[in-house]
């Protein structure tokens, strides 16, 4: 039971950390200054959430783990994030669509988690929800702007959907440790699809026909991309163990 809560907390932390790390790659590379600032602000929020979840997981583990050891010293197979968040940034359309898919999911998830029987998870969820509302509004607007924009931006959005849709199903497939989380994934999935459908309609985009959904990330089986992310993320602690500044 306790093991399940620890793993679930790590899963929540890993989702936020990996997407935060991915978004931070845009720092200094955003299409214009304001959007560069926006996506790096979102990175900061996500990494802040990850820290809170890692601190909570560390306190539950009682084996000397810290937020830092959990982020910097676990291997790829120990990471429990969804495949979606580790996918490359691609172009701006892909970065925005990934953010929208995740923020819409996270927004609905945190609404449920703020009533979690684990008080700390509930507190982190309630606090993070306020920030995620901004992420969702912003990424949603971008999906509409690009989907219903020029021929070029529309094509890019179609390509992004083609690239990312296959990773969305996993969010709603419960991992073993997720069963006692108190989250109703069936309702979550219905609400998520409904919202995505609404935004896609406005963006003149359509949800793809039934396709095979990739999964495994929640159980530590990742796409080839995560290894590269962790290599960069963990470089300093791996090369200079225990270094601080």
């Amino acid at each position: 039971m306790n093991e399940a809560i620890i793993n679930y907390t790590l899963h929540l932390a890993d989702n936020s950390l990996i997407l935060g790390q991915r978004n931070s790659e845009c720092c200094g590379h955003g299409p214009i200054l304001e959007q560069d600032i926006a996506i790096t602000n979102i990175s900061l929020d996500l990494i802040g959430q990850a820290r809170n979840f890692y601190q909570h997981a560390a306190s539950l583990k009682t084996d000397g783990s810290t937020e830092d050891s959990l982020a910097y010293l676990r291997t790829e197979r120990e990471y429990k994030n969804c495949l979606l968040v580790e996918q490359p940034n691609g172009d701006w359309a892909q970065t925005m669509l990934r953010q929208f898919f995740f923020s819409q999911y996270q927004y609905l998830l945190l609404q449920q988690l703020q009533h979690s029987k684990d008080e700390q998870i509930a507190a982190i969820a309630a606090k993070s929800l306020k920030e995620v509302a901004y992420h969702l509004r912003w990424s949603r607007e971008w999906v509409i702007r690009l989907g219903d924009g020029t021929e070029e931006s529309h094509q890019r959005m179609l390509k992004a959907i083609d690239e990312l849709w296959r990773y969305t199903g996993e969010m709603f497939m419960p991992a073993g440790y997720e069963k006692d989380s108190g989250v109703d994934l069936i309702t979550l999935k219905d609400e998520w699809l409904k919202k995505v459908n609404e935004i896609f309609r406005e963006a003149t985009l359509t949800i793809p026909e039934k396709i095979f959904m990739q999964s495994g990330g929640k159980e530590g089986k990742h796409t080839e991309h995560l290894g590269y992310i962790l290599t960069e993320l963990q470089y300093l602690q791996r090369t200079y163990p225990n270094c601080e500044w």
Partner: protein
Amino acid sequence: MTAHEIDKKTLLAFLEEIKDPEVPVLSIIDLGIVRDIRWNDDELELVITSTYTGCPAMDMITANIRTELATLGFKKIKITQSLSPAWTTDWMSESGKRKLKEYGIAPPDKRFSIPKDGVECPLCHSNNTRLVSEFGSTACKALYQCKDCQEPFDYFKCH
């Protein structure tokens, strides 16, 4: 009145002097992040809450509180971070809001809980302003431009 209560008043006045490093006109009391002050025997415990989860100023604020309290002679200090209830700009003091405006940052305004055009320009007081981005130079601010005086300005978002 007990000795501890007298200390609490002195202490509050002292904490008024500790500023937010990113918005240096606001004290940590103005921001409403000090949630509780208590004594556990000879240990002084301060319960603080972060504004935004990823706000990098929090670590610095914690360090500053420690250093400043040490100069006051407190030997045993414990700083506890509390997450619930989540911080809200409703806890910002009225004097804090006034100081923000004088500093050139539009204070939180309920009518703009979701940022949109029209927040009052802190420089020329026009409402003919436009939202440039819901994300600004720090997590707590949005970016605006005044269409009358043309100056860009920050708006401290409702949270």
